[in-house]
Every structure is written in C-alpha cells, then in structure tokens.
C-alpha cells in the first residue's frame, strides 16, 4: 500500500503525458505522419494505408493479429499482391498441417498475387519456419515474407528484426495474437476484427457468401501515430471459390 502511494504521483504524471501525446497525435494532420512512398509497402486499402501513414514500412517486423475470419489473410494477400506485381518477390512460409492451414492459391491469384513470383515454403515446425525466414531475409531478394505468428525466443526475433532491417524487407507475422516477444520486436501491430459478414441471395442453394466488413486498428507503430483504425471491405470472388458444383 505504501509503495503504491509512493508511486502514485509518478503514475499521474505519466497518465498526463500520455493524454497530452494522444491529443497531439489526434490534432496533427495525417500528412505529419506520412512515410515516403519508397519506404513503405502499400496494403492496397486506401483507408488502411492512411491509418498506417502510407503503408507498411519496409525493413521491419509487422503483425496482423486477429481470429480466423477477421480478414488478416485478406490484408496479407493484398500486401503480397503489391510485393509481387511490382516485379519483386514475395514469400509465404506456412504450416499446412497446422491449425491455421495454408492459403488457397486460387484465392491468392484472385487477390492479384503473381503466383510465379511467390515462393511457398511449407515448414513443419516453428524452428523450420524461423530458419526459412532467416535464409530468405539474408538473401535480401524478397520484399515481403509472410510467416505464422510463431512463439520464438527473444533472441530469434532479435536476429530476424535485424535481418529485416538490413534487407529492407517486411517480415509479416499472421496469427491470433502475438507472443510477448513478438509484441516487443514488432515495429507495427495491426489488430483486425470482423464487423459483419455479408451474404447474397435468398437462402439455401441461392444463398452465397458475398464478403465481409472488417475493422483494422493500429495497436503499435514505431514510425507513425498508433491508435488509428480503418474500415475495410472485402468481397468474395467466385474465381477464388474452393470448388464448383458439377
């Protein structure tokens, strides 16, 4: 109790400072936090790019956090499309037998990803995925590397963060929630939540998934203002459907 009373003034000062900074961020124009064009990888969603200050900064670890159905894979696919369409290379490290499964190539193609320029690395465990990320970052030839949000020791994330910085690549971790270590080493964290799933048609055979509305909130951003959010609209394309009636 005595210790709590002793630290109270310091905590009050900290709360005051946080409120001041939040006010300053809120009052500042978006341009004040906009990153240079060549320093970012655009998500392709104008609202999210604005919230991120132009896009995902290159040379960092970023996370897209959210439950299944939150739209994190849709944002990742859009980023992969941006990385591969400009003549660059993207990489997707995933665990097909894991809980998260693997991204369906036709839906990636429908999102605009150039599959010829996308390296897919199936990794059996976290160690394999981390090693693959290490090799690809060292090559400095891949603009975006997507991995599952692994639980790795801090020393591994330190190394990967350093390599991402040196190779000017984005290491994007997808998962339900980032581990404590990943939260620390990620320079950008975005939380995604589903707001509404849209359906088309009357019902039964005539009912079909039309898309989903998603809310993205910037939880952490080391190079721009955090706390912003964006509403994203994702449609479901028939070309990406996992099977067709015969």
């Amino acid at each position, binding site marked *: 109790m005595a210790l709590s009373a002793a630290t109270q003034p310091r905590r009050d000062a900290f709360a005051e400072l946080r409120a001041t900074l939040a006010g300053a961020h809120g009052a500042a124009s978006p341009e004040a936090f906009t990153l240079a064009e060549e320093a970012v990888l*655009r998500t392709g*969603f*104008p609202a999210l790019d604005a919230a991120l200050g132009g896009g995902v900064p290159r040379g960092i670890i970023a996370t897209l956090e959210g*439950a*299944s*159905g*939150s*739209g994190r*894979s*849709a944002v990742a*696919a*859009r980023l992969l499309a941006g990385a591969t*369409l*400009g*003549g*660059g*290379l993207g990489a997707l490290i995933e665990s*097909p*037998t894991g809980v998260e*499964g693997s*991204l*369906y190539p036709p*839906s*990636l193609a*429908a*999102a*605009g990803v150039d*599959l*010829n*320029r*996308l*390296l*897919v*690395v199936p*990794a059996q465990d976290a160690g394999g995925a981390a*090693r*693959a990320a290490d090799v690809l970052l*060292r*090559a*400095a*030839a891949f603009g975006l590397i997507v991995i599952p949000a692994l639980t790795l020791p801090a020393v591994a994330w330190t190394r990967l963060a350093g390599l991402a910085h040196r190779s000017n690549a984005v290491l994007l971790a997808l998962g339900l929630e980032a581990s404590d270590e990943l939260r620390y080493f990620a320079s950008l964290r975005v939380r995604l939540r*589903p707001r509404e*799933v849209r*359906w088309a*048609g009357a019902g039964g*055979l005539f*009912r079909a*998934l039309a898309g989903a509305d998603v809310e993205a909130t910037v939880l952490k951003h080391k190079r721009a203002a955090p706390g912003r959010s964006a509403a*994203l*609209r*994702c*449609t*479901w*394309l028939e070309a*990406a459907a*996992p*099977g*067709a*009636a*015969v």
Partner: protein
Amino acid sequence: MPVVCALVPAFKVEVARLTRPELRERPLIVVDRLERGHALAVDPGAYELGARPGMTLLQASACAREAAIAVDEPARCAALWEEALDALDAASPLVEDAEPGVAFLEMRGIEGTPRAWLASARAALGAVSAGALPFRLGLAANKFVARAAALVADGSIVRPGAERAFVAPLPLHVLDFADYVVERLSLLGVRTLGDLTALPHGPFVRRFGPEAARGHERAAGLDREPLVPRPRTLRVERSLFGEGTAEREEQVLFALRTLVARVADDVALAGKRCGYLRLSLECEDGETLELPTLLAQPTAQAAIMFDLLRARLEGTVLASPVCGLRLGAERLEEGGTERSLFAGSDPDPEVVAVALARIEAALGPGSALRARVTSGHRCETRYAYETFDARGLVRRAPHANAAQATSEEGTLAYRVLAPREVGVRLERGRPVAVGGRAVVEVAGPWRVDESWWAQALDEGALPYASDAYDVLLADGTLWRIVHEAQRWYVRGAYD
C-alpha cells in the same frame, strides 16, 4: 544429301525385351504403370490382336489377353538411346535425334560408298550395349525416304532418283497422318503412297488441310525438312584427391573452392557457361554422395558456383571423412546472359537460387515451391505446387509492370485446413451447430459429384461425392464444412 536412318521400331518394347529376354517370344504391351496405367507402346503381335498405344491397361489387356505386360523404364530408355547417339557420332559428325528410336545421320562429305556408310554406322552401334537393340538402317537422299527404307528392310539403299518409285507401294501408315485421315482416304480407294500421288495436289490439300501438303510431297519421295543435328555435348570435369582426408566442414569448403576455381576456368576457356553442376563427395568408408545442382542461369563465375554448392552442402551430414571431390560442369551453353534495360532493381536470380538451395538444405527437398492454379471441380484439384525455379523469374515488360490496384474493396481469402472431422447437428437437413458452436448463417449445399461414370466404364477410378456448406458460427468463424461418406469435415476457413 545422303542420309542414313537408324531406326528401332517400337523402341520401348525392345528396351523392355532387352531387360527381360523371356518376353521375346510373346506379344508385349508397355504401360506407364500397372495401377490405372495406359499403354505406351505395343509390339506388332499385340497390335495384330487389337491393342493400341493410348488405351488403358484394362482395355489393352482385354484386346490382347495373351500379351505380356511390361512397365516402362524411362531412365533406362533415355540412357540406352543417349548411348546409341553417342556411338553414332563416330559414323557422322551430324546426327539428328528425331525421337527415341529414330536417328538420322548426314553422310555428305564423308568418304566411302553407301554400303560402307551403313557398315560404319552398324559397327559404331555394335561397339556399345545399346547395339543389342534391333537397329534397322536405311539410306536415301532425304530423311523420309531413308526412314521408309529402314522400315522396309534393314540395310536398304535407295538410289538417287528412285525415291518416288521406292515409296509408291508403301501403305499410308508410313506417313504421319491421323488415323481418321487414313480411314477416309481408304474409303476413297487411296491405300498406298502411289495412289496418293495420283491425286491432284491442290484439291487434296484444300480437302485435308496444310498437313496434307507435306504428306503429298513425301508420297512423291520428296522431303524438304532439313536434318537438325543434336548439339555436341561437352563435359568439363575435375577431381581433387589429396593424401589425407577432410573431417571438418571448413576443410571440405577449402578443397571445394579450389576445385570450383579450376572448373570455372575450364568452362571459361571453352567459351561456355555452365547450367548444371554435379558434385561428388567420396568418403573414406567408400560411400559417394552426389549433389546435382541446377544453376539459376548459366554462368562461368567461380564465386556464384561456390556459393550455390556451399548452400547445398549446408544441410548435408557425412558419415565419414571426405577423401575426394569430383565436380562436373554440364549443360554448357554459348553466349552471355541477357539482361533487361530496366533490370536494375530486379531480384538477382543467382541470389535467389542460393537462397532456394539453402532452404532445401535446411528443410529438406521440396521445400521451395511455387503454386499454380489448375482446372478442377474439387478444392484440392484446383491448385498444384511445383518446384520454385529461379530461372523462371523473367522481368515483365515495363508497361506491364502495373502498380498495385488500390480500391476500397479487397478480396476475402480462403485457407485450406487439414481435414478434421467435426460433429454437426442438423435440423430439417440444415446444420444448426458445428463442433458444439451455434450456426448463425448457412449457405449451401454445393454438391460435387465426380467420376460417377468410372465404375460403369471400369476405369478403376473411385467415384467421389460430397456436399459443401459455408457456415458462420456465433464466434465469427467462417468455415467451409463438407459432408462426405456420412461424415462431416472442416475443410477450410474464410479469412
């Protein structure tokens, strides 16, 4: 231009008989595989009984019940044929590899008589094990007639000017016409090449298309197709054997660096670039480890070769010390590497190739993949993975290098999950709970019914039927569930 044709009719059949001499006395069908296989080649005996290449194994065996079945050995076929071609190099410097079992030799400028040319080709073949195959030789002024001569009788020689008369009595099957064309011509009373040449060229070509023009000329003993010699194979190989052994990785790498420098020098001296490296590590216990390595683009630079080989060695575990290294450079090509004017910021294929080799060394073969969209009705048949090849990284044209589309709307992605059985509660035939979680919204079913015809046609395939539903659960999860063989499975998730 005198041309010798070296021909092995039904090449795959003869290779199978070479492997298994007991099959010589029986009609033979060569298939790609025993389970749901197809006939690749049939011998004349099996052909007489009704078996045809392209039939399913069941169909071919039903037609020719007494025929023996042999499984194709593509590697052995390729090795024997390559050996035969190398042997024929001794008879002529210009050898065309038309197809496995058919080779043409240009004899112009070579001293000797036609009989001497045939004898030299036969002697060359007799010196190798592939010479045990029943080769037929024919000589004529062009490739088509030389092949026809070899088909008619081994050692046939067609004198210049006698081509038309020689091929006139031959049946239409000698030409590469489709079966239906031969059948239609037979109905018109045209059965031999002589009958065909009697038809007027213009109306015949108008009726049967441009391919018929070439056939009509060939029926008259003319063949304008030039002989296309196969490229000369040049191999560069160096080996390094010391007095001691290399036990540590650094020692092996030190020796490898020396060896690579020598091979790169040899390749550069020959004015070539190498596209394929074959490294052999000979160990003290007698084991030899082979590391074939494909280069992203042909090169003569030692540093690139060394980086790639070192990456391949990273995941290698050796049971005993290395006592020797052998490095061969293959697929040697002329010329330099074409670079685009706008290639400044492109990923370097050589760097990517090294990264791919490191990935495979770390995670095992088949770890660096590229996805491809295929046609199919089922989720699992609508895509395939193939090995990621850094050579495929072709820079697109600048105008096609479009910026990423930006719009308010994105595309929902789909994740393929490992099939997991799940409990589903139904009400009036519709899922209302999946895995104990309430269903908020459901769409479907979408039925996939495939291969239902297979059993009727006795093709050996299993029919497949399933009903797929998209379900939105109370916690926001959006799953695709599939009802298949009386069980429910979660197959994928929208994300």
